[in-house]
Structure formats: C-alpha cells, structure tokens
C-alpha cells in the first residue's frame, strides 16, 4: 500500500474542533493585518485626509460614550428593584385572586343561608318573612332596588390629572360621610357608595389617598346612591348641612358634584354581618356587657 503523498505533518489531536481552534488561535481582526500590509506597500498613502481623521475621531467619541452609557446603565441596581417589584406584584395579584375567590364563596354561602332560612321560615307565614325582609333592607343584609337619588362627586380636573400640588382638590372621606349622613337625614331607606352598601356599622375612612368603605378601597368618581322618594330626598338633602358643604366643594375646590333622580337603583346587599349574639325567642338574656340583646339577630332555626 503506497501513499502518494509525502509524509504529512503530525495531525493535531484537536483537529476535529477547527471552529474552536480558529476562534482561540486567530482572534485578531484580519483588518489590522491588512491595514499593516497596505501601509507597508510602497505606493500606499500613508496620511489620511483631515476628513477621514475627523470621522475616526468622532466615531471614537461616539463609541466611548455609548460604551460608558451602556456600562453605567447596566451597573444601576435596576434588576434587583425590578425583581422585588415583580415578586411583590405577583404576590399582590395572588392575594387579590384569593380574596376574590373567598368573597365569591362568601356570597354563595350567604345566598345558601338566605335560601335555607326562607325555606325554614316558610311555615311561619308571610308575616315573618316580610318582617325579615324589611329588617334586612334596613340593616343592609338584603339587596334593595327602587327609585331614589344619586349624588356623584368627582375630583377636580387638576387633581385627577395627578398633580400633587392640587391634592386637596380630591374628594375626601369626610365629604362622603357628610353626603351619606345628609341622605340618611333626608329619609333615605338604603345607601350605597360605588356599589358598597352602607349599614349601621359601616365606616367611611381614608387610607393614604384611597377612600375605604368598609375596608374596600374605592376609586373616583364616587356615586352615592340612596333609595327613597326622589323628590323628598332631593328637597330633604337641600335642607341639610350637606347641601352647603357640597356648594363649598364646588366653589372652593372645583370638585364636581352632580345630583340626579333615578327611577330604578339597584343596591347590593352588604356582606353578611358576623353573628355575635343569638338568643332563643321569648327569653330575655342579658349579654356580658349588660346590654339587653333579646332583640338582636335571631338564628333562623330557633325562630321558626
């Protein structure tokens, strides 16, 4: 067996990895070698024109500037902040979803309780049911609907644009309290603010810039809906202190106030209140606090 070729130089052991070899043994840009060869050429122009020199200088400045900017941008602790914010955001979303699921479950259970109590009370006659419905409407545990009055309050245009300078032109919890109290005074049968039903134990408060009704944050514009005789409510409200307060809000703070009669308002029920005391009918029991609670909430089973 004859080899026509002369003895080949020893084959490199790593010859199969030509790509890596090329990358690691010849990293210098071929352009440098070519430029050097051109300069070495006897007829080469050794001096470049001033325009070319200026261009190179400008490009070099741009390159240095860009690199420094990029490096500074990358050194900023943005990723950690962003990471923490993303983590917090996802946690907030998770918790909100969980809270929504629980609220929905709560509503389902409340509807079930409602159905069961109606069923259990069926034997007690319509009088009991009617009394229960009337009391529920007054307490706020039963959704009500009907004609009424709607008062709308909205932040002034400047405050709504997010200008901190005009932060006091926002609607505040006090404004909603005064309107709600004015509506109660004018004879409202039920009130809800942005779909949050007010009960005897509701609180209208603020936390930071948000207004909370029963710990549920609301966003403007705020719509206070009251069920009752619209005409009576409107005239009644005009006689209360709320009217002058609303006028002050409009004139001094630029807060938008609108009052409109509505033919059909739908006020949702407030979440079922916590049952704290329950007494069998017919037995007067004195609670630990000394209050006579015989008229307090009765459990359906015992009252039938």
């Amino acid at each position, binding site marked *: 067996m004859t080899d026509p070729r002369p003895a080949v130089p020893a084959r490199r052991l790593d010859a199969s990895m030509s790509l890596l070899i090329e990358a690691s043994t010849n990293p210098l840009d071929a352009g440098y070698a070519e430029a050097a060869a051109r300069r070495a050429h006897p007829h080469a122009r050794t001096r470049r024109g001033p325009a070319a020199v200026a261009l190179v*200088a400008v490009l070099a400045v741009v390159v240095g500037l860009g690199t420094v900017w990029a490096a500074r941008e990358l050194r900023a602790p943005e990723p950690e902040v962003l990471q923490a914010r993303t983590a917090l955001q996802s946690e907030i979303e998770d918790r909100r979803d969980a809270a929504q699921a629980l609220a929905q479950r709560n509503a389902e259970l409340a509807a079930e309780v409602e159905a069961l109590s109606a069923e259990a009370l069926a034997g007690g006659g319509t009088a009991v049911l009617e009394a229960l419905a009337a009391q529920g409407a007054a307490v706020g545990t039963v959704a009500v609907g009907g004609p009424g009055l709607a008062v709308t309050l909205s932040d002034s245009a400047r405050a709504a644009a997010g200008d901190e300078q005009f932060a006091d032109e926002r609607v505040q919890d006090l404004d909603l309290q005064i309107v709600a109290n004015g509506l109660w005074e004018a004879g409202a049968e039920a009130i809800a603010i942005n779909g949050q039903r007010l009960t005897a134990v509701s609180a209208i408060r603020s936390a930071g810039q948000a207004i909370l009704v029963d710990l549920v944050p609301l966003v403007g514009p705020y719509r206070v809906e009251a069920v009752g005789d619209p005409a009576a409510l409107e005239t009644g409200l005009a006689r209360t202190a709320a009217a002058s307060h609303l006028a002050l809000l409009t004139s001094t703070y630029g807060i938008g106030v609108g009052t409109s009669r509505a033919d059909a308002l739908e006020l949702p029920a407030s979440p079922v209140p916590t049952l704290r005391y329950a007494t069998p009918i017919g037995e007067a029991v004195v609670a630990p606090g000394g209050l006579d609670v015989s008229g307090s909430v009765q459990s359906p089973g015992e009252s039938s």
Partner: protein
Amino acid sequence: MIAVLGLVAGVVVGLLIEPTVPAWLQPYLPIAVVAALDALFGGLRAHLDGVFDDKVFVVSFLSNVLVAALIVFLGDQLGVGSQLTTAVVVVLGIRIFSNAAAIRRHVFKA
C-alpha cells in the same frame, strides 16, 4: 492615536453626562458592552503587535457592537434570543480571552 484620544474623550463625557438609555435598547446593552470589550482588547493587542490602525479599530468596534445587537435582535424575533445571546457571548468571550493571553505574552514575555 486619534481613536484613543476620541475614546477617552467619549468616556469622560459619558461619565459626566447622566445617561438615559431608552427601554427598547436595554436588552442589547450587555451584548454591546461585551462586543465593545472584544474590540478594545483586539485594538490593544494590535497596538502591541505594532499593527494598530485607527480606522480598523473604530470600524471593528462599531461593527462588532452592531452585529452583536443585530444577532440578539434577530434571536428575539425568532424566539431564541437567550440562546443566540449565549452564542455571541461565548464567541466574544473566547476572543477576549485569547486576545488577553496575547497581550499577556507581550507584556510579561511569558
């Protein structure tokens, strides 16, 4: 020499002026910095080899950065952005490393 002076001037100006890099450029910054480092080491090695050339340096610098960013951009569009980023970093990393080795041989003769 012009290129080096310009580079220094650019770095100084960049340090003095607060940079605000637009958000759409953010993904390309790391790769651009790595490409710039590669060109920088290549230029230094060429200088030590005695074949440094202003024009070649600036052009290779700019084209490295642009090509690297373009590859990453293409990768993002094709859905393989992180893989192509890795590929670019590996190739440029090898080049930087061997250029640094050549510089070391020049400086320390070892």
